[in-house]
């Protein structure tokens, strides 16, 4: 026998279910008067530095049908690659956004600024990217992925996370595609030939 380790086990995940909006975006779901506003709807203060962008897309199931009951959260650095809470961060970049997919057409939309490159643990830069987390009915454990910017060809080619992906043919599933006017399209495929890469972090 040896001494016991004192570690606890993480609480097991359960699906967010079909009514996740009641808890996380009650005003969106029609429950008004409890919270002033839904958290995460506004990602910027009055004068953020950097290029304004819009990220839009859908979450698609294995039949290609958009989920109309999903909820996404994103987390990103400011234009200098500094996260809120770190020294020198831009106070007008909140970094965090939350958006339910539209109940009719399944689209999501975030208004933010383009993040700068963030340092990897070993000091090398990671290409600009935004962390995504997706929950919905039928998803048992929230899915982590990243959106990179398809027009950052050089930085993406040098990115330490993208480089370690064995099936390079899947890397385009992580790319937000520029549509002009600062809009990036990022569809997330839960399943199928274009299945998005998800990370076990």
């Amino acid at each position: 026998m040896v001494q016991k380790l004192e570690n606890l086990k993480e609480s097991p995940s359960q699906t967010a279910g079909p009514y996740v909006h009641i808890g996380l975006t009650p005003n969106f779901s029609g429950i008004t008067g409890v919270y002033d506003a839904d958290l995460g709807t506004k990602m910027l203060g009055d004068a953020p530095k950097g290029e304004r962008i819009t990220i839009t897309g859908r979450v698609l199931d294995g039949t290609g049908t958009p989920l109309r009951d999903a909820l996404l959260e994103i987390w990103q650095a400011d234009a200098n690659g500094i996260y809120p809470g770190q020294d020198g961060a831009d106070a007008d970049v909140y970094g965090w956004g939350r958006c339910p997919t539209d109940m009719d057409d399944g689209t999501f939309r975030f208004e933010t600024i383009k993040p700068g490159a963030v340092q990897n643990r070993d000091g090398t830069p990671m290409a600009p990217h935004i962390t995504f987390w997706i929950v919905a009915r039928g998803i048992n454990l929230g899915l982590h992925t990243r959106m990179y910017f398809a027009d950052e060809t050089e930085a993406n080619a040098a990115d330490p996370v993208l480089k370690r992906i064995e099936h390079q043919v899947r890397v385009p599933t992580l790319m937000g595609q520029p549509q002009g006017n600062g809009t990036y399209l990022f569809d997330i495929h839960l399943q199928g030939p274009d299945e998005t890469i998800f990370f076990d972090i």
Partner: protein
Amino acid sequence: MTDKTSGLFHRDRSWHPAALTPPYKTSIKRSPAAAPISMPSTLSEDTGPVFTRDILGPQDADLIHNFASEGQSAIGPRIIVYGRVLDETGRGVPNALVEVWQANAGGRYRHKKESYLAPLDPNFGGCGRVITDAHGNYEFRTIQPGPYPWPNGPNDWRPAHIHFSIFGASFGQRLITQMYFEDDPMIWQCPIVGTIPSREAIETLVAALDMRRTVPMDARAYKFDIVLRGVRQTMFENRMEGL
């Protein structure tokens, strides 16, 4: 912030539900088929939004009253749910945002896509939130939700439950789960509970009735601790409040 961290403990995926769990039918077309790509956490997952108490309204942690008309209250068994948010090393997680949602005492949600014939309670909305104190403690008041039927198998019912969403200090700790109630026989018949591989893991989601924390002639108490992924070293102790 001094970056002394070497990141998050890796997640024990055999303890969590798999993505594909056919008895829970909706998972079949919504589960990734490829293995997730393993990577050590980076700053992008080790950092996360900070929530401060100024976002909270006076009744956010009182679901009995926060949707009710003046002088009214929600119908159902009145309960206090309390506990701690901890990480895998056993440390309390301070300033964790805990958001909850649930059905009313009849098992009905206030949602336009909900079709169960049980009635809405005009005085019950179904959402609440609280931020943990310096030791990771939280507490809220609500009514005990009812079980409800759902379209899956021909006769599937959810056990009474409260949905929980928790933010720790890192975005990589993000967790959504559900709390069940001690001694509910419906727990062991539910295909969603059954997505969790082991009975031992399921039991960590069952809140214990605590008569010592009961408020006599008012509300019974249930204790529910939540464990988030561990963070190596002490990265977050110097975090500034940023959001």
